[in-house]
């Protein structure tokens, strides 16, 4: 099977580089083993919320320099200031082009609301999700928090406490439908993914309008857990029109519905543009000759290899097994690329869960063009993007999605430029 580019890993990073390449008429395949970490998505993409030393970042574009000066290993440092700013804008444009109309911009972080009602800085947030532009002020006087009876992945009580501390009055109400009873029988199945199948049915519209108009009487807005509107995109806006009050969503504990749908949305974009998405397959072996990846073999395709001019490795971090830790090392299983980790295993983690966890920064080493290093030498046509990279801490710095998206775009751009130069040189 011959492609221009083969991408290993079908999560956020792999999909973004794939879409960018396909938009430029390149033939791409994605090899993805199972669904991705996007299924834990909060509804917001973070770009840069804190510097590695803990200092807050409010204006990512303006403040990126501080990171670049002091943290040489960081993927953003490899990009440099100009490229960072250019790529954030390109990312915002690309999402818009494909039809993901997000709120926010890289000039200034806004604040998302967590499942516990706290405010966290972020870059881009899905439409319909509640945000605020000021970290001490919420845009409402009184809100009605609605939960679904018996749903344990959303806790309006916590949200209410947190809102009260910010001077917002709250009221908690419960929504229910008779059809929900049969999944309620089994508490471990009473999850957002299952609820949404029933809540999004046309038949729930009437009950929503009826209940929500009562609930919202004394409130400026209604806040619901993210269990609605994914299958039936007009449902929430129709209900809003009927009751005359805005409705916002908050993320729930995982699994995240918005994650499931964002993954499907981007995957659909990829396939509609002509990409080949191989789901449920995994790479077993790769051949490298003359410092180039020549063939990639997978479990499903056995003796028929993938061949491509370029290979992008976006296989994720520990969770997705893009890198694997054993008792004394951290390794990258496909190409055995050089990895960055601490010698002593006891230094990898901190017993205090909320402290900086060093293992979060482990990952694959690359040169400044994000080409993977093997025995210290970059492989000519193997690029590495996203969570598998070393040198950053997605949780502490709030930069996971940003690194995934920007490195993907950077690499896709490099591939396009490289081929353009070849073409013009050949003419």
């Amino acid at each position: 099977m011959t492609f221009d580019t083969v991408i290993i890993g079908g999560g956020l990073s792999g999909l973004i580089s794939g879409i960018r390449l396909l938009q430029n008429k390149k033939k791409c395949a994605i090899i993805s083993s199972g669904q991705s970490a996007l299924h834990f998505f909060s509804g917001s993409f973070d770009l840069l919320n804190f510097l590695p030393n803990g200092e807050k970042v409010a204006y990512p574009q303006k403040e990126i320099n501080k990171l670049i000066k002091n943290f040489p290993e960081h993927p953003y440092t490899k990009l440099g200031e100009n490229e960072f700013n250019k790529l954030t804008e390109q990312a915002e444009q690309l999402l818009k082009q494909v039809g993901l109309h997000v709120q926010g911009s890289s000039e200034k972080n806004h604040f998302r609301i967590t499942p516990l009602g706290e405010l966290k800085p972020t870059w881009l947030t899905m439409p319909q999700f509640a945000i605020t532009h000021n970290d001490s002020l919420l845009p409402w006087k009184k809100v009605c928090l609605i939960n679904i009876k018996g749903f344990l992945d959303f806790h309006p009580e916590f949200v209410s406490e947190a809102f009260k501390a910010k001077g917002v009055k709250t009221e908690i109400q419960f929504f229910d439908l008779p059809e929900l009873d049969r999944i309620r029988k089994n508490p471990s199945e009473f999850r957002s993914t299952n609820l949404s199948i029933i809540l999004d049915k046309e038949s729930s519209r009437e009950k929503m309008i009826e209940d929500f108009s009562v609930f919202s009487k004394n409130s400026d807005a209604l806040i619901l857990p993210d269990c609605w509107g994914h299958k039936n995109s007009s449902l929430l806006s129709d209900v809003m029109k009927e009751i005359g009050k805005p409705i916002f969503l908050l993320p729930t504990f995982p699994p995240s519905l918005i994650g499931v749908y964002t993954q499907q949305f981007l995957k659909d974009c990829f396939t509609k543009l002509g990409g080949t998405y191989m789901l449920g397959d995994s790479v077993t072996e790769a051949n490298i000759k003359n410092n180039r990846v020549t063939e990639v073999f997978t479990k499903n395709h056995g003796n028929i290899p993938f061949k491509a001019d370029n290979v992008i490795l976006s296989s994720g971090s520990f969770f997705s097994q893009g890198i694997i830790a054993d008792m004394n090392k951290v390794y990258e299983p496909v190409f055995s690329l050089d990895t960055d980790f601490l010698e002593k295993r006891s230094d990898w983690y901190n017993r205090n869960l909320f402290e900086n966890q060093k293992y979060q920064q482990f990952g694959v080493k690359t040169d400044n063009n994000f080409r993977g290093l093997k025995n210290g030498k970059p492989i000519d046509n193997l690029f590495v993007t996203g969570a598998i990279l070393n040198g950053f801490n997605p949780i502490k710095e709030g930069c996971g999605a940003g690194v995934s998206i920007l490195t993907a775009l950077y690499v896709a751009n490099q591939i396009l430029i490289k081929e353009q130069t070849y073409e013009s040189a050949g003419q």
Partner: protein
Amino acid sequence: MNLLVNKSENNFEQCIKCTICTVYCPVSKVNPEYPGPKQSGPDGERLRLKNPDFYDESLKYCINCKRCEVACPSNVKIGDIIQMARIKYSQKKPTLRDTILAHTDFMGTLATPFAPVVNAITSAKPVKKILDPLLQIDKRRNLPKYSFGTFRNWYKKIAEQQKTFAEQVSYFHGCYVNYNNPQLGKDLIKIMNSLNIGVQLLEKERCCGIALISNGFIDKAAKNAKLDEQEIRKSVLEKKLPVLTTSSSCTFTIRDEHPHLLGIDNREVRDEIELATRYIYRLLSTNQSNIPEFNNGKLKIAYHTPCHMEKLGWSYYSIELLKLIPKVEVTVLDSNCCGIAGTFGFKKENHETSKKIGESLFKQIEEGGFDLVSSDCETCKWQIEMFTSKKCEHPLSILAKVLA
């Protein structure tokens, strides 16, 4: 180096409870009685291991499509866990109706000599009405047609001529080609011959057992599987001929269900059992001069990925072969279960679920303005032709038809 980390046989402990499998289960979406893959698979297994009384008969609603497995980020063999649990714990005896539906080869042997009569009888309204209350086979269902004379019988006439080709392959035709649609087998032979390859049949062939497994006839399925395995070994190891197939479900069953569910060790030959579309793709991609000439008008084809094809990951080959035909526009439909799931959709109690599962697929087919649908699975063909206005043909039949 093999990178696939060794997993225990029953790897339910790898489940991280993300519920992603349930999102992609076509049955969970429409059947409120089905607890879903996470609950029926890894969660239930934990309980069943403690006490078999926790076995829940609702596991019978699983149509073994394996879409949960394809989606699971932790590589849990959810579908296998569920099927194994049914095999181990189910107390339910199969009914007469299930017996008839499961024994595709036996029924075929009885029906083909009388095909015109059987077809006339089974498509007659009064008979369907009788089948309904008597056997619980839904009367709204169009029953598969039987052909007059089997594929194997037809093949005898050309067996000698096939031997004249220098290069040879074996063909596992399956019950469907033998009894219902010999034309597909003939189409394969036409294409292979055009590539200068002769086609041989296995000396004997039993049903791969997919319908036996799903209807609870495990001993019978295992017995068939053993006999098939012997024949396949003869072909691959003694005659050095790969075994080609035309049905994605038979292929998947022989390669993966035989070892996982029926305990057949096929490691030595598994790689040599493959869909003919894959074999032909490899042949053409290594030698461009092999690409045959076609003679056809404009054609808009929609390709539907059958569930077991999704699991195999091989729809790529069929799609690429279709794309070789000039003036053909191929659209790959969103990969969704069509709802028939082998014999499942024939059962009266499943008719509505079966139709609901396939609804989004039927809609896509009707709205796309296609001339034709293509799919590698015989039961998907029945379902699509029953619930849409379009014909559904195997990619190889389409190819054979337009060969110059």
